[in-house]
């Protein structure tokens, strides 16, 4: 590559990029409206999508851009690609650019694969000759050889995406801007896409990857940037960015003051013989951070005040994930039945301590307090009074991440012959 030797310009430099959209409140689309109301200036709100975003991407880097919906990451990508003009600030690029803002842009559904592949290739910056020369590679990668004469409108959405992705990666760009295209396609094709991105990374191409999937951020990126409401929150190691992202994304409810149990207005049931006064999550050192890293020992604790005299009360904890599935259930009734006798007005502290194997995300515990016995004789049922966030980089995608020993060994039976059907 030409810029391998000389201390060349970096692939991407963005300096104080600011982008504001004007959102008209009432759109005048017709001349009549203009003619009837010539004095009325169309009122509009402005919305700052990007606010002085400064960053640079180094040669051969896989750079992640994370952020919630509406944080400005797609706008940033469009500004980098030159689809939107910026209001202020500047962007410099060094190298041939390809954008994957959306796959299959300009595909015409009444044409067969070949015409679309060629036109799309030209759109992405190839010459017609180059685009035609790549046709075979594209169709093979997309695994659509047997469907190449079929009009695109008869393709399934998966086939469509495969073709579009295959076209996009055949453009020999030095800089790729990728916008969450991997959220589509079946698992096998996704794996293929990941392989492609890995190869590109190994070839030293520069990739900017916009996502809100922290798993792929951690797996692929060398560095990452977190955007929130158009501003840069953090630039650094992917796992730092992923942790900040989870904090911002899921920690918001926790910040709003829900740690304090409030006796009124909660979703509560029971006879009121006892009330959860306060509940919180704490880490191994006893601190109460906004987010808890995966893999460490954590404890969920609840302070309970009794209104009546109670003998051997039972407390149960249900750790619900964001889909309201109980990932973990624990109870004092099982191996701690004799919890003691409490007088009216006394307080007790219940503690549930465990190895944090929960997958990254937000959890809201549900606590029940019951008189001794079956646990159905409820005194209190406290739900939605607090939540905590688990952060972590190594999530595999399951509900929990517990240590798994993986082994491979040659089986003693030797080579298994293919049995003719």
């Amino acid at each position, binding site marked *: 590559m030409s810029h391998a030797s000389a*201390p*060349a*310009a*970096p*692939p*991407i*430099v963005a*300096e104080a990029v600011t982008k504001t*959209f*004007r959102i008209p409140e009432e759109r005048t*689309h*017709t*001349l*009549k409206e*203009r003619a009837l109301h010539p004095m009325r200036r169309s009122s509009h709100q402005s919305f700052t999508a990007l606010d002085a975003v*400064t*960053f*640079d991407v180094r040669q051969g880097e896989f750079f992640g851009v994370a952020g919630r919906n509406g944080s400005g990451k797609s706008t940033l990508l*469009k*500004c*980098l*690609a*030159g*689809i*939107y*003009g*910026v209001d202020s600030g*500047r*962007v*410099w*690029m*060094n*190298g041939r650019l390809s*954008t994957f*803002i*959306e796959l299959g*842009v*300009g595909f*015409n559904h*009444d*044409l067969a694969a070949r*015409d679309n592949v*060629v*036109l799309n290739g*030209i*759109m*992405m*910056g190839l*010459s*017609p000759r180059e685009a035609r020369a790549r046709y075979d590679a594209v169709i093979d990668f997309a695994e659509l050889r047997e469907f190449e004469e079929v009009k695109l409108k008869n393709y399934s959405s998966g086939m469509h995406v495969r073709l579009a992705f295959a076209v996009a990666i055949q453009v020999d760009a030095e800089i790729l801007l990728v916008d969450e295209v991997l959220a589509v396609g079946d698992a096998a094709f996704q794996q293929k896409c990941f392989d492609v991105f890995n190869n590109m990374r190994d070839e030293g191409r520069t990739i900017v990857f916009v996502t809100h999937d922290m798993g792929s951020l951690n797996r692929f990126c060398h560095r990452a940037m977190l955007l929130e409401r158009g501003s*840069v929150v953090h*630039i650094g190691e992917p796992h730092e960015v992923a942790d900040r992202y989870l904090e911002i994304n899921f920690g918001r409810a926790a910040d709003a003051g829900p740690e304090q149990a409030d006796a009124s207005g909660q979703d509560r049931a029971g006879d009121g013989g006892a009330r959860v006064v306060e509940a919180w999550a704490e880490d191994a050192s006893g601190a109460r951070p906004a987010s808890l890293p995966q893999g460490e020992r954590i404890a969920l604790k609840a302070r309970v005040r009794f209104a009546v005299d109670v003998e051997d009360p039972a407390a149960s904890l249900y750790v619900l994930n964001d889909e309201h599935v109980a990932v973990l259930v624990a109870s004092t009734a099982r191996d701690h039945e004799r919890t003691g006798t409490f007088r009216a007005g006394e307080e007790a502290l219940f503690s549930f301590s465990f190895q944090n194997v929960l997958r990254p995300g937000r959890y809201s515990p549900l606590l029940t307090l019951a008189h001794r016995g079956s646990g159905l004789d409820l005194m209190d049922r406290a739900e939605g009074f607090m939540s905590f966030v688990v952060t972590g980089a190594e999530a595999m995608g399951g509900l929990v991440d517990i240590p798994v020993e993986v082994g491979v060994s040659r089986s003693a039976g030797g080579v298994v012959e293919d049995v003719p059907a």
Partner: protein
Amino acid sequence: MSAIDYTELGRPIRGPRALTDDWSRFWHLTYNIARNEFKLKFFGSVLGYVWQLVRPLLLFGVLYVFFTQVAHVNDTSTPGGAHYGAQLLGSIVLFTFFGEATSGAVRSVVDRENLVRKIQFPRMVIPLSVVLLASFNLGLNLLVVLIFALAEGVTPMISWLELPLILLMLGVFATGVAMLLSALFVNFRDVQPIWDVVSQILFYASPVIISVETVQEKVSTAALHLYMLNPLAVVFQQFRHAMINPDTLSAGEALGGWAQLLIPIAIVVATFALGFWVFNRSAPLVAENL
């Protein structure tokens, strides 16, 4: 954030523009979009291109029968009236080009919203590809006119060499209007009905059915000169004069002198400049205003 402290920087990225520095990509894009549209138009139809001819030919048939057999509007007995059929067909074909290029351009940018919002490319490609598509049709239709004219007994003339100039004037005019309309339609959606009406008016206000000679008989010289300021009138009349029947008035004669020809040419250039200016100005914001 540390400030940018690089001594060397890549090329600056500017926002979307009407034109580009990469002219070969500009051309390939324009050509391939037009080519695919052309292909699509006849996709799945058995007779394919024949359908493209049916419309102008049907219009021609109706008008020809009506104005020669029923209404007798044009005096076909004079020298200028000879080969009226070929004159009429030629004018219809030229007008069809103008109509396709301009009416097709009105919605073009808005209809290609997905491209405009997702890909960086010179925006001018869109209206130009519409004009190019109309040009493909014009080329094929002119072949039909040629065959028809030869069948009617028109003999090849040295003045046929004027054809590129005539088509150039028509093309520049149509392109100017196409750029103007496609840019205006983004913000003013009633450009479409307005242009439908205007192009109907232009059809009857230009010497398509009625020859300039007929107009000349009916109105004063000053009115004729005014009539001929319409660039389409100049194009159609010069086409008749140079291509079909030299006994018809040339555009210059109908205007009362070749120097006056500069006025319709100036109108064409001004339309093109205005269209370009408007489109160029709106191009950077089109993606956001759609």
